[in-house]
């Protein structure tokens, strides 16, 4: 089993709790050190990136993970809460159980990367920096935790924890309607997690660990059919209850994705949130929903995944097309991007609904790509907004000559997001479509959702035209081109996009074996 410890503490714990350490450091900073806070934050996040890179070098792609503990890497497993039964069958055993496999590792990389980028992008924040960066690091640790937790309870805790800083980050440092957006976001997700909680508890009491004969929150054990006795609530024979559980889990995660019709929080949250937070939101948070589906719904309720694949695919198609159409009608740059990411998350769901290895690897890959690309897009929105203090697409025009570097950056990002070949998103989208095709149940849906390709192109090109082409309005003569800091935050992502577009294997090899195992597991092939 691959391990990597620093000072006797596993690297994943470092990844999760280093930001917390950073929080403490920030809080201890005196008032006078106000101006160094941002650098401290960047420092801590950059350490995360370094750790991630080191992990990448150690990581062994041949290990699959999913439902075999042996397949997980950097595993840490301690008892957190362990209460032996006293009067009633009240034994609760919760483990501090971290580990990564081919599905979570790309997400960990993404989180580290985006957190770092977001930290750089946060420099424009001027008000109450201490609070901001503290919350920011808190958020980072929460997100990281979600991706590495392998104990359902732990997962849920991180899942919920992450809401609090997000609420404040949107609510305090956001735009005019920030309060509305923040509370909307919080309530939606809280509502969703209520469903997750119910299923979690239900699973716990249905489960019976084959080894110890006790209830368990351990996701790996829960995947084992022997863990859920036939007579129990979510037992294998208890068809209806299992499907209900799947649905409520799906609702819980779909709100985060966000899937139609639970998506209305996203435009508000995005528009109101400060740039860096939009980046995090679109770059990482949305992935938590789809990741949760793969890690929990798909793995623990494969029957549900099979039963509902058509409805899910249809929802995905609605996301794709509906999101694109909404984006087309937007006049606010940021809102447009927000809707576009609804559309792109639709691709992810389509790939997952296909239940084929190619589709799911497409989905995971698309999660990563969407993370990087949308990050760039939101950063670019921030760039223009910081200068012009407006996001109205119709207020602009002719920026191409005024801000050539910006034009270059943004055009690459735009074409990446319409899935232009040679850029990463193309590979993932193609895989997703192949997956959708391969599964003949959802083939029609896949064909319909190919309409999305055209619509994406339409609104993106229209946006390019409105922003860059034509003649520059008088009032924007003062605009300066994209600055070095902004280039630092965007260019690395674009490099990744291009490189992964040409050599996708770098990413695909990481997830290959896990995805294959997952699919085999779902279809019961061994």
């Amino acid at each position, binding site marked *: 089993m691959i391990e990597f410890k620093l000072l006797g503490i596993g690297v994943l714990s470092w990844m999760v709790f280093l930001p917390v350490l950073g929080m403490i450091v920030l809080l201890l900073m005196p008032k006078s050190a106000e101006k160094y806070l941002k650098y401290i934050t960047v420092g801590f996040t950059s350490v995360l990136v370094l750790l991630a890179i080191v992990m990448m070098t150690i990581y062994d792609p041949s290990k699959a993970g999913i439902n075999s503990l042996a397949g997980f890497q950097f595993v840490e497993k301690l008892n957190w809460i362990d209460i032996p039964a006293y009067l009633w069958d009240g034994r609760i055993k919760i483990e501090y159980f971290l580990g990564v496999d081919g599905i979570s590792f790309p997400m960990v990389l993404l989180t580290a990367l985006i957190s770092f980028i977001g930290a750089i992008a946060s420099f424009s924040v001027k008000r109450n920096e201490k609070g901001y960066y503290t919350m920011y690091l808190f958020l980072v640790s929460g997100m990281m935790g979600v991706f590495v937790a392998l104990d359902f309870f732990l997962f849920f805790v991180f899942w919920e924890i992450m809401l609090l800083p997000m609420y404040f980050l949107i609510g305090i440092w956001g735009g005019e309607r920030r309060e509305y957006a923040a509370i909307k976001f919080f309530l939606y997700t809280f509502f969703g997690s209520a469903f997750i909680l119910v299923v979690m508890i239900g699973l716990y009491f249905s489960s019976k660990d084959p080894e110890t004969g006790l209830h368990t929150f351990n996701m790996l054990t829960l995947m084992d059919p022997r863990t859920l006795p036939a007579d129990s609530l979510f037992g294998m024979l208890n068809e209806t209850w299992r499907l209900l559980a799947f649905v409520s889990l799906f609702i819980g995660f779909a709100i985060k994705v966000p899937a*139609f019709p639970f998506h209305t929080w996203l435009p508000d949250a995005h528009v109101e949130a400060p740039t860096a937070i939009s980046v995090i939101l679109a770059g990482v948070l949305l992935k938590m929903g789809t990741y949760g589906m793969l890690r929990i719904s798909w793995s623990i309720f494969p029957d549900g995944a099979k039963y509902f694949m058509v409805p899910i695919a249809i929802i995905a198609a609605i996301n794709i097309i509906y999101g694109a159409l909404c984006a087309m*009608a937007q006049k606010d740059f940021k809102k447009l991007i927000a809707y576009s990411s609804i559309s792109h998350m639709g691709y992810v769901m389509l790939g997952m609904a296909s239940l084929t290895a190619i589709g799911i*690897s497409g989905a995971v890959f698309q999660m990563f790509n969407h993370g990087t690309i949308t990050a760039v897009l939101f950063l670019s929105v921030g760039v223009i907004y910081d200068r012009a203090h407006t996001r109205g697409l119709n207020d602009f025009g002719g920026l191409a000559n005024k801000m050539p570097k910006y034009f270059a950056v943004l055009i690459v990002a735009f074409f990446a997001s319409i899935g*232009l070949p040679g850029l990463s998103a193309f590979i993932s989208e193609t895989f997703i479509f192949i997956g959708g095709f391969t599964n003949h149940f959802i083939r029609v849906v896949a064909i319909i959702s190919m309409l999305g390709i055209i619509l994406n192109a339409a609104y993106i090109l229209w946006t390019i035209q409105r922003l860059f082409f*034509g003649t520059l309005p008088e009032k924007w003569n003062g605009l300066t081109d994209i600055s070095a800091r902004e280039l630092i935050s965007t260019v690395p992502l674009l490099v990744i996009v291009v490189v992964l577009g040409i050599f996708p294997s770098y990413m695909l090899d990481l997830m290959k074996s896990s995805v294959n195992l997952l699919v085999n597991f779902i279809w019961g092939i061994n």
Partner: protein
Amino acid sequence: MEFALQKLPVIVLLIPMFSFLVLAFFGNKIPRGGDWLATTLLFINLAFSGLILFAFGTAGRYEMNVEWMDLGGAIPGAAKFLAGFQIDALTAVMLVVVNAISAFVHLYSVKYMEGDAKYKKYFSYLGLFTFSMLGLVLTNSILLMYVFWELVGLSSYLLIGFWYENKAPQEAAKKAFIVNRIGDAGFLLGILIIFLTIGTFTFTDIFAGVEAGKLAGGTLTAAGILLFCGAVGKSAQFPLHVWLPDAMEGPTPVSALIHAATMVAAGVYLVARIFVMLSADALTVVTFIGVITAFISATIALTQNDIKKVLAYSTISQLGYMIMAIGVGAYSYGFFHLVTHAFFKACLFLTAGSVIVGMHHIQDIREMGGLRKKMPITFYTFLMATLAISGVPLTSGFLSKDAILASTLAFAGVNGGITIIVPILAFGVAGLTAFYMFRLLIITFLGEPKNQEKFDHCHESPAQMTIPLIILAVLSFFAFFSLNPFSADSGWFLNMVSMPESILAGTKGAIYHILPLEEFKEHLHHAHNTAMILSLAISGIGILTAFVFYYWKKVNVDKLTDSIKPLYNFSLNKWYFDELYDKTAVAFTMGISRLSAWVDNKIVDGIVNGAATVTRGFSKYTGLFDNIFVDGLVNLTGGIVGAFGLLFRKFQTGKIQTYIAFLVFGILILYFVFRVF
């Protein structure tokens, strides 16, 4: 040597990429923005590709693969994605054509684009285009072909919208990209079908799979037609031809390179590439699409007054010819026409460019006239190309066109019935082509100058522009393709590019409508002479009428047009295709998008806000709504909570005795409820 040769295609592919990167990133550092670099590199590339042509043209095909992606034991099957290139006659020829024209256009542009604000950007774009075009030609995997296909689309987008300060180029660029995208969606769909059924992307394996019958019947036809959709988009075939005329908003050399010679030919190349796996029905579709396109655009070209528009429509029409040719099974002739057309159409565009420069960016031919005296070289090159396109003997155009016409006759002869319409339209188009091309020539170069002062300032273009013209004009002589001026069959070209055996031949498939091949050849042989005579006659008539109308003015054209006003307008307005699409597809999409945005605000969010709106009236008179609104209570829970909350609040009257009353009431209720249980 052999080894080097096999690596050569890669080098040929990478050279333009190199020039693109260098110019894109260091354009500012290099003197003159590195135009000289790009141009020289392209000429080197041309030399290389010539070498390749000699090496592989006759020596059969060579293929090379590297593994691109591997998904392990993925479901279904083992998903491996190969990347590689192949060289056979088609590729080799295409390489030469692309490189040649690209090189000439580079040279030409040095003067033409001189002093433009985005000069170096222009050359880098050219490099990008050439790279992707070569990639498209070279690759052996249909997926990679799609990749380069899109990249070509991108560079075309960038070049059409090169002068994006103005409205028209923006719109044209967007239109081009989206219309192509529509075709490409079909293309991708076809690719996916193939992958699902055969599980590979490389052409050889695909053909093998088809031969093994993994993909047959309706699915095969569907796949073929879907792939053809891509061609329809790129080669501007009906009904997706609308983008090409607008694309003329780009710089003229670009039009010559991309929208006349190479990119638009990509569709034809694709059809040629997959010819062997096209089923009969697919081929029929191809044929008819081709011929319809050819006819429609020819009729439109009759009345256009913008010199580039006329050429654009003639391009579409010629592309239709090629497609049709392949459709009727004259595979090699179609491809032959592609090559010849590439040269003389490039020549035409470049001459048009020099005319435009000469006339200081006047494009309306009604302002021109009598330019022959002012710019002789331009005139004679133009004349040469015009003769070629009109299919006058001793020109390359004659060779290819004549062969195509002959095979349409043969096609009709074999199948009979309705298919007779194909040759009829084909010949009609030949005549129309001759007519409108000479109309253009006469109005532009002969007669009296209409716009005197423009005419006075007009002058011949410099050498950098005229040299390519001359070369291209010369290249449209028959001699370069066949020593026999009346038939190219014995020429080196057709010896090299011979019709492949359809892999479906055995299985009653593909080109069964020209099977047995002998019979087809037979018909072809007989048709040849008739075709030659007919075509000569028809184009002669065309040319003659042109002279009658516009040179000798024997017929009053205006009166004539008045007498057929509706028809005239119909043609002038391009059959109202744009209007149609605007009214239908575009309007529909925009409508839907606005609708859904509205829905998203009002309904979906509204369902969420629903109860809130329900309670709004309720809350108004309590005067609390604003407060609640501010507090972000505006969504479903909010609404219901609000409603019930308000309801319950009514109980809290502040009068203690009311409370006691409620207490007693509660006790009673509870009692009755649990008596009922």
